[in-house]
C-alpha cells in the first residue's frame, strides 16, 4: 500500500501504484462528476454512457440498501444513504458508490470513492431532486462489476431550480 510518507520505498510504491492503475487513490477514470465546470445538462442516457461506457449492470437488490424517503416534500433537501453489504478487504472492496437521479438536469449527483480503510461501504448525503424521479444507487466493485438498484421518489416541490 502506498503510504503518504516520503521515504524512497514509499516513493517507489507510489510509482508502482500509478503504473498499476492507482485505484486506491482518486479514480483515474474520466467520470462525469470529476469535471462539473461544464454545467453538465445532459440526459441520463448520455451521462450513464459516458461514465460506465455501456457496461452491464447487475441487479443489486440483494446487497445494496438504498435508504431514501418515498415521498419528499421538499426536493431541495432529500436525505439519501446507501449501504452495501460487501466485504471491504484489499482484495475485494467497493470502489465507487454513485447516486443518480434520473430526471435531474445534472443526473449524476455524487460519486464516492472508497478504500478498504472505510471498513464498510456506506455513504449518506442530502441531495436535490427536481421532480418525481427514480433514484439509483450504482455500486462499482474493485474488479469493475457494477450493481444497480433504483427506487422511485415522489417529489412535492422540486428543488433544482434553473
Amino acid at each position, binding site marked *: 500500500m502506498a503510504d503518504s510518507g516520503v521515504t524512497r520505498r514509499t516513493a517507489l510504491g507510489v510509482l508502482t501504484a500509478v503504473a498499476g492503475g492507482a485505484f486506491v487513490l482518486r479514480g483515474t477514470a474520466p467520470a462525469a462528476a470529476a469535471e462539473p465546470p461544464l454545467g453538465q445538462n445532459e440526459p441520463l442516457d448520455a451521462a450513464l454512457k459516458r461514465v460506465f461506457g455501456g457496461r452491464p449492470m447487475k441487479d443489486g437488490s440483494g446487497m445494496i440498501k438504498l435508504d431514501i424517503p418515498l415521498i419528499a416534500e421538499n426536493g431541495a433537501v432529500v436525505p439519501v444513504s446507501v449501504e452495501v453489504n460487501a466485504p471491504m478487504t484489499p482484495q475485494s472492496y467497493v470502489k465507487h458508490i454513485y447516486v443518480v*437521479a434520473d430526471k435531474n438536469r445534472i443526473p449524476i449527483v455524487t460519486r464516492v470513492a472508497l478504500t478498504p480503510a*472505510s471498513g464498510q461501504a456506506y455513504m449518506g448525503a442530502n441531495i436535490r431532486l427536481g421532480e418525481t424521479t427514480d433514484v439509483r444507487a450504482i455500486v462499482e466493485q474493485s474488479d469493475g462489476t457494477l450493481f444497480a438498484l433504483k427506487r422511485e421518489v415522489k417529489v412535492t416541490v422540486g428543488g433544482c431550480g434553473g
Partner: protein
Amino acid sequence: MSDVGKVRLRVPASIKAGDVIRVRCLVIHPMERIERDKAGKIIDKKYQYIDTVTVTYLGRTVATFDTTQSVSENPFFAFAVKATDPGKLTVAFHDTHGQKYEGSADIAFS
C-alpha cells in the same frame, strides 16, 4: 452569509479500537444552482459549489466524494471509517472557486 465554510463534524461519543464508525459532517455553503435567463438559456458563469470532499484519517485518504450541483445547499455527508488507531480525522471541502474548508475530529478510544 458569514457562516460560509463552517464545518461541523460528528463522530460517535465512545469508540473502541477496531470499530467501524459512522461519521457525519456538514458544511455551510450555498451550492449555487444553475441559473437561467428569461429565454431559458443557462447563464454562463462560474457557479460556486463544492465539487470535491476528501476524508483523511491518519494521513491517508479514506474516501473521496465528487459532487455536483445536484447536492443540497449546506450539504451533509456521512461515511464510515474503520477506527484502527487514535488520531486525527480530517474532512476537506473544495469548491469551484478554489476555496477550501476543513474540519477535523480526534478519534480517541474510550
